[in-house]
């Protein structure tokens, strides 16, 4: 495929040979990329099939075979024994509150950093940036002691607060980057018309900033919905557990009923996969934006 252009007009034979070589290469590439897709997706598919088998079928070694009759009982077992809907509700609550908190606090801070004329804007930004490098696990122990003293350990507040705190740096970074690009004239005319700061923020800046706020929402959703270790460290009551924590404790307790374990894992993955089907493009874009935090 190196020389297609150079020889095209002179040697038709070489062109067809080149085309052939190109299509062979293309087929090989297609095979390679498909194999890769299968390795990325097959484990999940296997899990789905696994979750519909009974114990005998699972242990028989025919991992590829479909179940003789789908065992929906695994799912009802999992839902009944595992408080699935309770966990789901908790995850929804915690994630929603965290999202709202992150949006509110970080958009206020980002507005001040990017639009106010003051000396320490950059310094504050640097503080936020340093925080992105701090490993979350290193704060588990001190936070636990702090929360114990505030006696909010084992409440949803004890995970929502650090969740918001750990999501703000990237949110402030994304939002202030966007707000900096809004032309000054808009505010200037608003100030001349006598609009207050709060008014400018609410009626001008926020509506324009909806796209980056979507990105922040997506990042927060994926990170917080999936978060496990903080929930497992700060929460102990069954009725307060979030979905990942709940899934993990169910699976560790229920070690003999393989089908039900598989069913619970499928149920655990389901919400995020459904949302991914609906918003794949937005999610992938948002996650790339979130990766830029280096």
């Amino acid at each position: 495929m190196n020389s297609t252009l150079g020889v095209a007009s002179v040697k038709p034979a070489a062109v067809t040979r080149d085309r052939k070589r190109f299509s062979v290469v293309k087929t090989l590439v297609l095979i390679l990329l498909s194999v890769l897709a299968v390795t990325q997706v097959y484990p999940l598919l296997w899990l789905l099939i696994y979750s519909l088998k009974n114990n005998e079928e699972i242990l028989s070694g025919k991992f590829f075979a479909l179940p003789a009759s789908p065992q929906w009982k695994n799912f009802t077992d999992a839902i009944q024994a595992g408080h699935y809907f309770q966990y789901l509700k908790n995850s929804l609550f915690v994630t929603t509150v965290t999202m709202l908190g992150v949006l509110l606090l970080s958009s206020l801070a980002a507005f001040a950093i990017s639009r106010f004329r003051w000396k320490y804007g950059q310094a504050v930004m640097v503080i936020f940036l340093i925080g992105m490098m701090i490993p979350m696990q290193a704060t588990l122990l001190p936070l636990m002691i702090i929360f114990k003293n505030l006696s909010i350990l084992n409440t949803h507040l004890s995970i929502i607060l650090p969740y918001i705190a750990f999501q703000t740096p990237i949110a402030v970074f994304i939002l202030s980057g966007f707000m900096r690009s809004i032309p000054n004239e808009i505010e200037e005319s608003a100030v001349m018309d006598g609009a207050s700061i709060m008014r400018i923020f609410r009626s001008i800046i926020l509506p324009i900033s909806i796209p980056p706020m979507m990105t922040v929402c997506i990042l927060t959703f994926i990170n917080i919905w999936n978060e496990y270790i903080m929930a497992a460290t700060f929460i102990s009551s069954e009725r307060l557990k979030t979905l990942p924590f709940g899934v993990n404790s169910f699976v560790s307790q229920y070690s003999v009923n393989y089908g039900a374990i598989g069913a619970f894992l499928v149920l655990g993955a389901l919400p995020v996969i459904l949302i991914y089907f609906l918003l794949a493009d937005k999610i992938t874009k948002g996650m790339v934006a979130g990766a830029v935090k280096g």
Partner: protein
Amino acid sequence: MNVLRVSKWTIAAFVLPCLLLYVGLVFVPILVSLYSGLLDWNGIGESKFIGLQNFKTLLFDDPVFWPSVKRTLMFAVFSMAEIPIALFVAILLNRFIKRPNFLVSTYFLPVILSVVIVGQLWKTIYNPAAMGGMLNQVLDMLNLHSWTKSWLTDPKIAMYALYFVALWQYLGYHTLIQFTGIQNIPSDIYEAARIDGAEGLKADWHITFPMNIPIFKISIVLAFIGSLQAFDMIMVMTAGGPAHATDVISTHMYNMSFLSMKYGYGSAIAAFLVVLCLIATVIINLVFNRLEKKFT
């Protein structure tokens, strides 16, 4: 230039809620952690100030510590080795596939799953064949009975089984990042190169690599810092066992603080981890600043 002149109080009202929460729940704990590293404390009773004793024990007398540092760094090396593969896949996608979005989103699917789902799924796959583990069943089917192993309980293999899961989960992330980077390279550069006789791999060498350096940096930081912090997945799958064979820095810290109740000692490990992360970030930034200057 920022235009809005506002009073100090207004600034405070906008910035402080966010900043205070953030400093209080991220910076203060880290400082507490650095200080607790100097204590002999079980978290409940009296604490005793013992200076650098914890760090001395950590660096010279802890048989688990250095192997866990080694595993953490190996984790980083494997994760970074994945980036060229991701770049290769991204180049192929960009050149040969007309509508690559579907494939890219497919590769990305594992990234959005919780570590709990991924960890437990692979734990099930790694199970012995008699417990329904797929990997061993596949090997049995291929008549490779001698290859079957208890993947997560054999100390020699368990760590590699974990590396693999992390690579599996994040391949899609790196592919997507590199793919986005390649798509942002203006196509007229490639056209100019083609007129000069550079196409295919040659064009990649002279255009894609240098133009993608900032994107490499993103991937490298993600892989490196992510590996230093590798934690939840290991906690879910092995919790550092069997016999510390899969302990990394952060699991060692967790086990020391929360299971052995050595709060002071655990904090010393946490401090080490924080410093390591900061140093790594600085080094990566320095290296890439050099690279970017050299190639652009």
